[in-house]
């Protein structure tokens, strides 16, 4: 038996010393002075609190990609990037505070704001047009904001909860032998009882009417540590398939409960925020077979991840892995800022290689066109699919994959699955136009 006390006790001592230092000096380290000509990209993160296990890998992926660009290229086309972090604890009020604090940061204000929370997105998307800051809610937020004629300052690319719900139904139909086979099936949704968790319900209700399956839903209140009643209901109803829109501890408890109650894991499908390593680790091998959606691939074999290893970690793979390199949410944070830096490059084609503000960035996002060739140049071939944004389409109609937990690792198990765009786009339009009417907004002419 070998006891490696040095690491843990060292951290314990460091923590104690840090606490003493803060108490004695009353200060915490301040960030370096901002570069005057840098493009300002504030990162909303949650490295503390109940949702930190999910927030940290995402934040590390975003930070490492931007650091790699700075180390390798000195920024974008010679223009440096400044990307301070703002801690939200996944709390809407703190997220709005971050937005207010950073919206005027840097030389030209924040170029873009990625709230990393549906609640924060809902809270600031009405403020952003007045402040001239585009909002990017990648795979979260208000799905109807994909309709750019109404939501000209909000972008949802590459896909939304509504689109994913239809992709899940398409996948289930494939597994069952076709859409016709869904008739009479029972499909359940266990969801976080919040704006985020309720997002897919209208889509699933609509599909239930169209395709003839029975839809049942189970709400779980924040934080979701105790779900025995919910799982008793699921055991009583015996749905053929169960989807989950969960977050944080709700995911871990639900997956453990599914294993405990004998729900067939390969018929349990989580949203992309319910399909990362922290979600399945507590259940470990018991969670084997559990599936989740995703809009990007997983793994470390991509050129862009190898560049991060070289430029950020000096080739030290252990250090990189300690920072979640290659994990599901790490790759998602990275992909988020690949999209946004490509939008910066697009905007620079129009405005030149200068410091960009929100107005220019909005143009870049609305004219974003990431082709297969460009994805290969970035070193992200296979990591995500080509995407094109337009004035009307702020989603880009991206596809999704299904991945599966084998007890130790996530493995991609399907090719790209197209959501039912013919179903969701009329719903986006209807919802967006209702929103425009309610808020007295003008509907843009994109022709």
């Amino acid at each position, binding site marked *: 038996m070998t006891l490696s006390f040095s690491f843990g006790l060292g951290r314990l001592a460091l923590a104690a010393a840090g606490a003493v230092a803060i108490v004695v000096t009353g200060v915490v380290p301040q960030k370096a002075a901002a570069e005057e000509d840098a493009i300002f990209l504030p990162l909303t993160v949650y490295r503390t609190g109940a949702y930190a296990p999910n927030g*940290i890998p995402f934040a590390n992926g975003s930070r490492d990609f931007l650091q790699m660009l700075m180390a390798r290229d000195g920024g974008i086309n010679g223009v440096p990037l400044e990307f301070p972090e703002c801690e939200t604890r996944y709390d809407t009020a703190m997220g709005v505070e971050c937005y207010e604090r950073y919206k005027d940061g840097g030389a030209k204000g924040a170029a873009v704001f990625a709230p990393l929370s549906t609640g924060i997105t809902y809270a600031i998307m009405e403020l952003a047009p007045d402040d001239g800051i585009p909002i990017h809610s990648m795979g979260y937020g208000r799905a109807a904001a994909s309709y750019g004629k109404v939501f000209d300052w909000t972008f949802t690319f590459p896909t939304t909860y509504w689109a994913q719900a239809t992709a899940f139904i398409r996948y289930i139909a494939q597994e069952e032998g076709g859409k016709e086979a869904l008739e009479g099936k029972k499909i359940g949704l266990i969801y976080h009882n919040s704006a985020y968790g309720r997002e897919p319900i209208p889509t699933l209700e609509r599909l239930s009417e169209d395709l003839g399956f029975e839809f049942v839903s189970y709400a779980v209140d924040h934080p979701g540590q*105790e779900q025995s009643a919910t799982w*008793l*209901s699921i055991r009583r109803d015996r749905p053929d398939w169960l989807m989950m829109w969960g977050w944080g*501890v709700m995911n871990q408890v639900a997956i453990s409960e599914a294993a*405990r109650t*004998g729900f067939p894991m390969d018929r349990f499908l989580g949203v992309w925020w319910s399909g990362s390593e922290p979600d399945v680790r*507590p259940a470990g091998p018991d969670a084997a077979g559990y599936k989740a959606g995703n809009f990007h691939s997983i793994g470390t074999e991509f050129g862009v991840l190898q560049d991060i290893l070289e430029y950020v970690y000096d080739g030290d793979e252990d250090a990189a892995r300690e920072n979640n390199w290659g994990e599901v949410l790490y790759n998602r944070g990275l992909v988020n800022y690949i999209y946004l830096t490509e939008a910066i490059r697009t905007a620079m084609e129009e405005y030149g290689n200068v410091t960009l503000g929100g107005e220019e960035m909005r143009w870049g996002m609305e004219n974003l066109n990431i082709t297969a060739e460009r994805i290969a140049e970035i070193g992200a071939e296979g990591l995500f699919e080509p995407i094109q944004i337009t004035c009307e389409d702020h989603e880009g109609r991206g596809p999704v994959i299904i991945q599966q937990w084998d007890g130790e690792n996530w493995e991609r198990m399907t090719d790209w699955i197209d959501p039912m765009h013919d179903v969701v786009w009329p719903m986006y339009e209807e919802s967006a136009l209702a929103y425009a009417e309610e808020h007295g907004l003008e509907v843009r002419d994109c022709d």
Partner: protein
Amino acid sequence: MQVLFDFLIGPFFQIFEAPIFFVEVVIGGMAAGIMYALVAIGFAVIFKASGIVNFAQGAMVLFAGLTLVGFLQMGAPLWLALIATVVVMVALAYAVERVVLGPLVNQPLIVLFMATIGLSFVIEGFGELAWGSDVHRLDVGLPRGSFFVGDIMIDRFHLVAAGSAGALVVAIVLFMQYTKFGRALRAVADDHQAALSVGIPLRMIWVITWSIAGVIALVAGVMWGTQAGIQFSLVLIAFKALPVLILGGFNSITGAIVAGLIIGVGETVFEVYWGQMMGGATENWFAYVVAMIFLFFRPQGLFGERIIERV
């Protein structure tokens, strides 16, 4: 009319039609209640000895769990990790007495309560600095899986949780009744001034009380952590213990168990049979509704001591 029927009569038809499932629901509720009680007992021990509502009990559950996992990840065998964690929790109790409670002796109880709110954030933050924010899988060899008695599904883990809670209560009662420290603790609980006047060291008693609460937090941390990993949302389970305490009485350990069972069964039965009609996710608020209804009739809780103030 149909709505009234669905709400008032329908669920009882469901129970009558599927009585085996109803038994499973009751058993599931009892299991949930035992888990709440494990946290509530820690509150009750401290309240009984000092009159303080320890808001930091949830953070102590988290810290004990994190510390245990930390030692296990260093390669320590389970028995050594458990002992080391108990030592850390005793050290924490000593530090709390020295730094927080000692300087606040003779202050109003609300001041001490506020101090425990601050303490909760300090313990949480310190735990995060020391052990990181990851979700840690905890496997101490407790049985998993279920078995059937007739058609009724029984979870092995829940049996262990019930056994642990029972053992914990017996151990606390024996400690209180048959040890010198236990008697001193009861004396302090009855009357601080009288206990001081006969030479019982109040501050030492506080250290012992908080140490016991630390050990209870460790048991609760192991049970909750085995279910869903050791993670920072464990701090929030304090909110699940509060209605249990209100119902059982803040200073009653037996009350914590009985109230835990009532709350657990009540909220589970309500969620399963009535929850869907109300949009689901009724457990959180229903527990508080039950507790408040009891408050109308017994403000001191089911087993709490009657509050008599002489003027």
